């Protein structure tokens, strides 16, 4: 049976539409929140880190640099936490009708993807306004986002399927994601880490999220951005991408094994 056959496509679109519709229901600004929220978060980070602490003075277009970092990070957190919770939220459906369960996770993460799309429009407007020039390397951005999406989807499948029985995962993930935020050069620039310790910078850049964020900055904003590709030694350059595929594979396998029993265990 084809994975995205007609029946599954219908269900996927309908669930995604519902998710998106419900997300901002009952709020006055509605869909605008998809843009306002990351902008507000960016505003806070910009004030604290760029203005008061004077991070990134040596980096060209630092505000946009910061903005794309927070936008990608928000996408990752939204994708994983919504993906993990989605199975619990839709438990009602699973107990009443049979359908491929991964569609639930896919539709939850698709909603995050739509939000990212909206945010990227904002990022591009900001970039052009602050004088970033259009370059052919922009074409690499969708590929990098795909990489980040596959990572998030793999994590959501893996953690989500365990969360069905052990709800602790949800809480653990919330804490873990806070820690992870500081382990990625989002608010502080990578050169700052290199100054302290070259080794620490290399370890940080093994993280696929850090790799994607730095690469997108490189492709979108300025080729002066230091990437994992630049500082990691030979074979280690491939570790971030390899991690993405390993996590995705584990996610798919675990989900496949566990999803048969979701309706009984939830």
């Amino acid at each position: 049976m084809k994975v995205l056959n007609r029946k599954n496509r219908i269900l996927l679109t309908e669930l995604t539409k519902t998710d998106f519709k419900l997300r901002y229901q009952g709020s006055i600004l509605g869909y605008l929140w998809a843009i306002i929220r990351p902008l507000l978060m960016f505003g806070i980070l910009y004030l604290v880190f760029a203005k008061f602490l004077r991070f990134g003075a040596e980096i060209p277009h630092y505000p946009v640099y910061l903005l794309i970092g927070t936008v990608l990070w928000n996408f990752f957190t939204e994708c994983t936490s919504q993906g993990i919770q989605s199975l619990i939220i839709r438990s009602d459906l699973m107990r009443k009708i049979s359908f491929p369960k991964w569609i639930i996770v896919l539709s939850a993460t698709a909603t995050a993807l739509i939000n990212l799309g909206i945010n990227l429009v904002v990022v591009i407007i900001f970039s052009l306004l602050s004088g970033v020039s259009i370059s052919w390397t922009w074409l690499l951005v969708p590929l990098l986002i795909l990489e980040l999406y596959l990572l998030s989807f793999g994590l959501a499948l893996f953690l989500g399927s365990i969360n069905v029985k052990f709800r602790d995962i949800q809480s653990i993930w919330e804490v873990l994601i806070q820690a992870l935020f500081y382990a990625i050069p989002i608010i502080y620039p990578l050169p700052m880490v290199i100054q302290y310790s070259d080794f620490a910078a290399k370890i940080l850049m093994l993280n696929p999220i850090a790799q994607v964020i730095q690469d997108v900055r490189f492709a979108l904003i300025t080729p002066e951005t230091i990437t994992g590709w630049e500082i990691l030694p030979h074979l280690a350059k491939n570790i971030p991408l390899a991690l993405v595929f390993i996590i995705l594979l584990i996610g798919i396998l675990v989900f496949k094994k566990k999803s048969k029993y979701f309706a009984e265990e939830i």
Partner: protein
Amino acid sequence: MKKSKKVSYAITVRNLSKSFKLPTDKSWGLKQAILNRIKGIKGYKKQEVLKNLNFKVKKGEFLGIVGRNGSGKSTLLKILSEIYVPDKGTIKVNGTLVPFIELGVGFNPELTGKENIYLNGAMLGFSNSEMDKMYDDIVEFAELEPFMHQKLKNYSSGMQVRLAFSIAIRARGDILILDEVLAVGDAAFQEKCNEYFRNLKGNQTVIIVTHDMENVRRFCDRAILLEDGKIIEDGKPDKVADAYLKLF
């Protein structure tokens, strides 16, 4: 000859068994889990709910499943609907199946009645354009025309059930699975459902779980009596209804 006979079955169940692991009171929490592991206590009780069931349902047959509370009826329906997976045995389903298990398949209280109909349709595998064709029919049967643009949370429970039930019977599936729903709605709506079932005879495969022996005698072509996870009577509705009443 043989082949065409095979196709005329909507559902074939062979050697079906199902058990659940029910956690005992001493199984929750990390400390208890570790203690149990050390002491070699399992922490759950295995309960066999269905024991080696065998039966077939013909195309167009109206089958009633009866039995006491906890005899395994609902579990059986959930396995037929592929919501639960069997421990042992096989189930062959021939055609599309529309399950109506408990009330309101995937209804969302924050969506309007109309949006819920389309979402529900998608769950059953119908596209928007297919639902467009069924929509009027569903609303008409449910008699909820004036409420379709209101959120479902503002519906009374009777109205919600009416809507769900109308979708289940108007969505054109080959096999309809109904769990304890004949008691839905007020007297007028019940009469309407009864008439629908009377006219149905032979045209659609229906499997129904009910405690109302009147309905079994009236609508079913055949009935099955489950007791303690086993089929103890299978045949004419009258015979099965009598056997059921003798259980008490």
